[in-house]
């Protein structure tokens, strides 16, 4: 599945840089124009100081080098977690130009910063320029490559006893996509009584990815990913009174989803007629996936030929959609501290999104359960999302040390949904197998008309009273009330409405201490109750505690600690939901000398999530699965899933980090560091082949970095990184995920 990666990446790589180069070009032209213009006005008899050009003080750096990677073990897992590959790199580039009198020709300040060019999975470019009262310009380009081959989310678990045995060693949902995001925001007259904001964002994701479709059996699909979101923003701020601003914004989002899907090979075979057929991902002949082996044949495929033609299989599959969504949004907002004791902020936004897409789907093969030899699906889907959003915040200073804070939030949306589809099935009239010609089938048309509406209204009001006892301590208490009404009109027929009305009541409290200038502590808590819920694992009770403290006994030493506890529960006897996320952390940063510094961190995280579940499970003879053997009866509640069990998920994660920086010689700086994340936990096992997931591993990442000042504004940097992902979980019929890798990065940095 990785064979197509290189060509596609090369193609994508050439496109990815276009937006960034545009930003870079803008910055370069601005810099050149400004510097040239300023240089012409300066006295030519005075030679500029180093780093000064015209009226500007200029600092710039560029770092060129390369990476050398050696991987042992699962290369796909390395790509999933790290993905730093060998090759030359333009590692980083910075440029800063500051007008020395803050009155530059085109700009007063210009900053350009970028990293990761030439093949790293993450690269970004930021640009910022401003000219005092005239404008602020911010631009950012980001590109991230996402490779994922972790076969827990799509795993046919083909058993070794199947014939043929074809384990799925790569994830059927493997993807290797690249997302490119550009954001440009320009504020004109930022300090004027009337200022204007213009913005544009572009988000494009492309690349090969795989998926699967279930038609009789599961088939592997290739879906070249292609989605684009363009966002336009226009806004105006008016300072209508002292310390009072009224704003209006218009947003337009336009989304295009052009991802298609087509059949990809996994288990090909030939019919006796010589026609190629695809058996799909699930090859478990004992459980008739895609079908059983019929004696006298001993295998489903013999000499490349399918031995059972009454088998779920695909000759072809194709699906096209062209999703188009446009979402205009208008927002008015204000913020004011006009009144001496009162600070106000508020906004209201109306948004109306419209989505429409045609559908074309064609299947040619055999679905044995329904005797379908082929089908074609066509139709049109459209949906709207109409939303109203409002918030209002007020802070009233009752006295110098006592203030009342109120925040109100409202969000209501409705999503009318319309679908009008038609599927024409070619259903066998007599004997049905893969050799049955299509003209021996009769067409059956199945129309689908979907008309539904998905509505929710959320209101939340939070009131707090905050009291600063002194400049050394303060406290706050508060209360949050929320109400959520959810209505799902499934088809607008009587009795087919899902209606939920949920009230939230939460008590809030917090204290802070700064007993000395060196020590600060914060504690806050929330305790919430919900009188109803929509989804089963939403809590009826939720409690959060957070304690954070920092101690700075010396200007060069900071020690910090934090405790975060979140506990959820729903004591309903048919749910028995309980969850917690407990986190304890310590950090220390010690830099006693300019030539020596140490950073340390440790964190322990405990997660539990449990709810009662009903399931259906009959392990093979001779196999005992503790979770199944210990299950109770759920037959009275769910006859199709007669077993009852607690789905306890536990996860204990420990994270440790140490980093030492020292400068043994004025021209040499060294950094040595180590990051370790260790995980252990448990989750019930349903099936003897079921991989247990990422619940038993140690991820170790030591690093060493040396920087040598070579003089002449040059520095030589070398760094070594080591990655070891040691997953000890049972992986079943999936590929082992262990890897370790060495990464050496050499570079030369020029800076002035």
């Amino acid at each position, binding site marked *: 599945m990785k064979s197509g990666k290189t060509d596609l990446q090369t193609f994508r790589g050439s496109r990815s840089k276009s937006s960034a180069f545009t930003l870079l070009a803008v910055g370069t032209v601005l810099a050149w124009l400004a510097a040239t213009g300023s240089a012409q006005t300066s006295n030519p008899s005075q030679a500029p100081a180093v780093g000064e050009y015209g009226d500007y003080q200029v600092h710039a750096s560029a770092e060129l080098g390369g990476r050398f990677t050696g991987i042992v073990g699962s290369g796909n897992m390395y790509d999933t977690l790290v993905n730093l590959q060998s090759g030359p790199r333009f590692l980083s580039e910075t440029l800063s130009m500051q007008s020395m009198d803050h009155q530059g020709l085109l700009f007063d300040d210009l900053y350009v910063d970028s990293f990761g060019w030439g093949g790293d999975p993450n690269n970004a470019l930021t640009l910022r320029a401003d000219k005092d009262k005239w404008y602020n310009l911010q631009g950012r380009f980001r590109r991230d490559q996402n490779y994922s081959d972790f076969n827990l989310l799509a795993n046919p678990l083909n058993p070794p006893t199947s014939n043929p045995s074809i384990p799925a060693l790569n994830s059927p949902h493997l993807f290797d996509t690249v997302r490119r995001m550009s954001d440009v925001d320009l504020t004109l007259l930022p300090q004027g009584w009337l200022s204007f904001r213009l913005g544009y964002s572009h988000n494009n994701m492309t690349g090969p990815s795989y998926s699967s479709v279930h038609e009789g059996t599961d088939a592997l699909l290739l879906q070249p990913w292609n989605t684009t979101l363009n966002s336009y923003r226009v806004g105006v701020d008016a300072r209508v009174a002292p*310390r009072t601003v009224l704003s209006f914004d218009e947003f337009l989002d336009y989304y295009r989803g052009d991802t298609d899907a087509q059949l990809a090979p996994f288990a090909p075979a030939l019919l006796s007629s010589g026609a190629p057929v695809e058996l799909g991902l699930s090859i478990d002949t004992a459980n008739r996936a895609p079908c059983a082996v019929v004696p006298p044949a001993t295998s489903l495929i013999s000499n490349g030929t399918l031995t059972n033609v009454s088998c779920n299989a695909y000759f072809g599959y194709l699906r096209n959609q062209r999703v188009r969504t446009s979402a205009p949004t208008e927002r008015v907002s204000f913020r004011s501290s006009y009144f001496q004791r009162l600070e106000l902020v508020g906004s209201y936004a109306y948004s109306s999104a419209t989505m429409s897409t045609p559908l074309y789907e064609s299947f040619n093969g055999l679905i044995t359960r329904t005797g379908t030899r082929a089908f074609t699906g066509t139709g049109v889907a459209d949906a709207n999302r109409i939303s109203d959003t409002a918030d209002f915040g007020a802070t009233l200073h009752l006295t*110098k040390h006592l203030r009342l804070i109120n925040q109100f939030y409202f969000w209501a949306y409705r999503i009318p949904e319309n679908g009008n589809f038609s599927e024409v099935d070619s259903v066998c009239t007599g004997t049905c197998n893969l050799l049955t010609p299509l003209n021996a089938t009769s067409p059956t048309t199945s129309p689908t008309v979907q008309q539904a509406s998905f509505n929710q209204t959320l209101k939340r009001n939070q009131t707090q009273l905050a009291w600063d006892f002194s400049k050394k301590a303060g406290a706050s208490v508060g209360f949050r009330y929320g109400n959520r009404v959810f209505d799902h009109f499934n088809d607008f027929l009587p009795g087919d409405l899902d209606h939920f009305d949920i009230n939230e009541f939460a008590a809030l409290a917090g204290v802070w201490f700064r007993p000395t200038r060196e020590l600060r502590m914060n504690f806050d808590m929330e305790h919430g109750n919900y009188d109803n819920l929509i989804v089963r694992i939403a809590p009826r009770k939720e409690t959060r505690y957070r304690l954070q403290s920092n101690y700075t006994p010396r200007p060069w030493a900071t020690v910090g600690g934090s405790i975060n506890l979140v506990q959820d529960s729903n004591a309903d006897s048919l749910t028995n939901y309980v969850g917690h996320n407990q986190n304890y952390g310590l950090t220390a940063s010690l830099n006693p000398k300019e030539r020596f510094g140490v950073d340390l961190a440790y964190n322990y995280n405990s997660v539990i999530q449990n709810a009662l579940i009903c399931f259906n499970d009959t392990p093979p003879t001779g196999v005992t699965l503790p979770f199944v053997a210990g299950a109770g009866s759920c037959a009275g*509640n769910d006859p199709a899933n007669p077993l009852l069990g607690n789905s306890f998920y536990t996860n204990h994660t420990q994270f440790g980090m140490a980093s030492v920086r020292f400068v043994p010689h004025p021209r040499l700086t060294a950094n040595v560091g180590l990051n370790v*994340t260790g995980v252990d936990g448990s989750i019930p096992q349903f099936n003897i082949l079921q991989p247990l997931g990422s619940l038993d591993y140690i991820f170790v990442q030591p690093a060493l970095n040396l920087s040598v000042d070579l003089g002449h504004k040059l520095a030589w940097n070398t760094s070594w990184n080591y990655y070891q992902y040691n997953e000890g979980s049972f992986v079943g019929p999936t590929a082992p995920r262990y890897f370790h890798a060495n990464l050496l990065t050499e570079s030369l940095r020029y800076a002035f």
Partner: protein
Amino acid sequence: MRVNLRKICALTFFVLLLCVVSMAGPAAQQVLDKGGPASKAASNSQYVGADTCKTCHEEIYDAWEKTPHWKTMLNKGTPSKQGCEGCHGPGAEHVAGGGDTSKIFVFEGKPREETSARCLACHGDTHGQGHYPQSAHASSDIGCLDCHSPHHAQEKEFLLARKQPDLCYGCHTTEKADFAKPFHHRVNEGLVQCNDCHNPHGTGTVRQVRALPSGDAVCYKCHADKQGPFVYEHVPVKTEGCMSCHTPHGSTNPRLLRVSLVNMLCLQCHTFPTQGPAGPAHNQSAKYQACTMCHTQIHGSNFSAVFFK
């Protein structure tokens, strides 16, 4: 339990209005120095100008001169908004007193409320900072100078005391560990910043999380294909949000899932048909495979009520 929200809102509004009215008027005690030094109505003669400050505080002046705050020197005719005295107040008495620090506003050691009010006198009405007085940071006594350093900023942009994310990690150690987990949003790599998703100056929602103008989760700015609207919405995606199934910062599980096996996540809701959506009838031993093998469009579909395509 049914509570009339309208009554609660009306009551809250009434209490607020009562407080405002009761404290309005010329006799009202000045509790917040919103106008900064200008509100003291000092005469221009009490201002000495930044050049005078430089004579004693040259090192600080040289650092400050390189920051955007120097541009306040260009505010012609308004000495209360210029240079050092734009923040520290009039300096004539301080100079006359031979550098007496009690005669000028010194930020160090002052309560957060007072120091932040000085900054907000100019920055309070800018975009994105309107919610600061209601923010969790303000309630926890985190002021402007806890993150910004006007004189000794390590980061030129926004005069941050330290670079992101280290600045945030200084207090939020839990998140530092989360972003070090194998599956994480790329904050440490420099691709994503904390303030892409959170507004440290506060928002209208809880935990200072940003939202799109339409009210939708900020997650959709990057994960645009998940936003919809869809003809078939998966209920928890829209009603509970992404965090119903994912952890936002980092996870030991692929795709930042809350549990390591996607089936278990699905089964925790799709069970007990009397309580909600029915569960699968597959025999888990005969045919165990991830639910998302078939239900591929789990965030919403335009053509399949069971999210097959």
